């Protein structure tokens, strides 16, 4: 799905939905995503009452529990501003699954649909809506680096945001993206799958870690915190120090200028 708005309708305000994983395990990725939005002149609003999109319960077959959590999130964004999510997986839940979740409640479904229409994954929003052109404005002065990209399965197959990350990285002169073997394959996380069937999850995750290592990349990025944590902690267990970053952190670090650091 390609979404975008003409540049004269560039939003001045956006909501930020951090996701529960970013909130508790990667808050720096959330701060960096907000910084990236703010440096484009957008005011970022963070409703303090947000928790989780509800996906863990939904994919485990506990739809009622997912609904009760999703219902709270739907009510958090009263103004007609875009809702930016630094995760293809959680954005996919809000965009595609919320309307399904409320299929039996027309009024709530209408609300869910209205929200779904303004949910954006971070990379998609930066590229298509804000239409960032970093290569024209800033110089990527950091050391040249090679990176492997892991795109979450939801981002790739449900949100269609695979090219967006590559396009953003392509705007940074010093960044060279290297391809890993079976790049389109899942990292093995799968949410509660990693706890329910840990042996299979470990086998898939180890193969992904092997592929990223074998690519020779100096670093890896993912726009999804779930995959990132899975790959990071798998590598760490193997005693491997290959650094991995959330896309937002990677971009913010590369684009940092002295006045950004305030």
């Amino acid at each position: 799905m390609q979404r975008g708005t003409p540049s004269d309708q560039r939003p001045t305000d956006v909501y930020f939905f951090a996701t529960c994983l970013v909130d508790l395990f990667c808050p720096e990725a959330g701060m960096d995503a907000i910084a990236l939005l703010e440096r484009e002149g957008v005011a970022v609003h963070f409703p303090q009452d947000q928790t989780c999109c509800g996906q863990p319960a939904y994919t485990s077959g506990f739809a009622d529990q997912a609904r009760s959590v999703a219902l709270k999130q739907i009510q958090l964004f009263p103004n007609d501003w875009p809702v930016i999510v630094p995760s293809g997986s959680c954005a996919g839940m809000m965009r595609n699954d919320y309307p399904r979740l409320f299929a039996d409640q027309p009024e709530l479904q209408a609300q869910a649909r209205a929200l779904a229409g303004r949910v954006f994954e971070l990379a998609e929003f930066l590229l298509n809506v804000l239409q960032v052109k970093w290569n024209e404005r800033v110089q990527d002065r950091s050391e040249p680096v090679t990176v492997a990209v892991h795109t979450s399965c939801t981002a790739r197959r449900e949100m269609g945001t695979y090219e967006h990350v590559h396009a953003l990285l392509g705007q940074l002169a010093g960044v060279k993206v290297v391809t890993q073997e079976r790049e389109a394959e899942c990292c093995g996380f799968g949410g509660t799958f990693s706890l329910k069937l840990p042996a299979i999850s470990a086998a898939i995750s180890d193969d992904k870690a092997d592929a990223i290592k074998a690519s020779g990349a100096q670093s890896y990025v993912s726009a999804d915190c779930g995959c990132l944590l899975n790959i990071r902690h798998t590598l760490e267990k193997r005693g491997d120090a290959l650094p991995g970053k959330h896309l937002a952190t990677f971009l913010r670090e590369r684009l940092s200028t002295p006045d950004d650091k305030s």
Partner: protein
Amino acid sequence: MAVSELKFVPASEFKQRTGAAVADPHLRRSFRTAMDYLMAKRAAQFPDSAALERQRALAEHIRKYSLSRLPDLLEQLERQLTANGIQVHWAENGEQANAIIVGIAKAHAAKLMVKGKSMVSEETELNAAMEAAGIEALECDMGEYIVQLDGEKPSHIIMPAIHKTKQQIAKLFAEKVPGASYTESVDELIGIGRALLREKFMSAEIGLSGVNFAVAETGTLCLVENEGNGRMCTSVPDVHVAITGIEKVVEKLEHVPPLFGLLTRSATGQAITTYFNMISRRRQPGERDGPKEVHLVLLDNGRTQAYADEQLRTTLQCIRCGACMNHCPVYTRVGGHAYGTTYPGPIGEIFSPHSMGLATTHALPTASTLCGACAEVCPVKIPIPELLIRLRGDATHPASPGHAPLAGQGAAASLLMNVVWGAWATVYSRPALYRAVTWLATRLRALTPPIQSGWTRSRTPLKAARRTLHEELARRRGK
């Protein structure tokens, strides 16, 4: 012949069985190599993704249309086949189907049945039933022959012996095939099989086949194959029995080519198979060959349960190409036997709960990361991840009001899981409580347990950040 060693794995053993499978480096390597090969062959057949999308949309439409008229089309098929001289039988379950086929064989005093490849006959465990009736049932598809020789079941719906190496097959033939000496030459191995099977085709009184598409309008049974054994089984013996699931019917002959083209490309990366058989009649007066009697057994075995529910009905769109298995990160690592069901992989995870009930299959829908690779390659666009989520819910909950319960509905219901998800919903739907709990987690990060259930089996422990994003941003605003 011991065909029943690899009987179905109870849900309680599913985890152990798959755990053992991923720990087997030999199995891992053989599946990885074979699946990479099949994925590359398929991809080479679809260079134009826009064209593929158009073909998939058409195929999906044909399957949905056919299913929307299923009862009518089945009646039309029966009328037309009967008019063509083909006898039609209906079976509610595998036992009935087997009894029908055993009955036909006995009526002809058959001692030997030669079998073309048929997954539905695997589903009904026909071989065991024939054996019990004192009739030899011999698999003639090379892959099926190999697994039958070794007392196994297929590990893949298209390539039954894909889990075996050339060396294993060489050893198996040398041990089990009379007169065969050890050779690792694939051509020689196939030669051994061919010579043996030729004899059997000539002496069998009855031949069995599956059906890929049954055309209602013309009363035609279409059979897709590469080895020619399907044609032998359906034309040399005096009696031909075809068996298929009730979902395989399409209305018109013109509905077949779009499905056929996607089936072979998706399955084996072939633009067309070596053989495509269209069977519409038995031998006619004056004709020199062909069976004197043709039968079709139409099997339900849980299909009407899937049919009755609009969402679950999409399961029946399947044309059995196996692409979902080849592309599944789980199947490619555990192989087909670990599932313990006739149909392994993603399609098995959504079909087996209907054919076998959720009581014994409720673990299958959990064997997925929901990555969506299956749905992406499915030629008829079955939304497999959505169905897996649906079945996870059906396995753990009673049927919702207005919905008929599935067989085994709620079999995996657990008080513990209800408590866990109930507690989760309580915390995550109360923002103040959520902030308090996550705040506490950050303050207790020094106490992070070194063992975290399945997570730390292959990963370092997850540790909360020093401050949540909520807290960071609240502080920033307070400045």
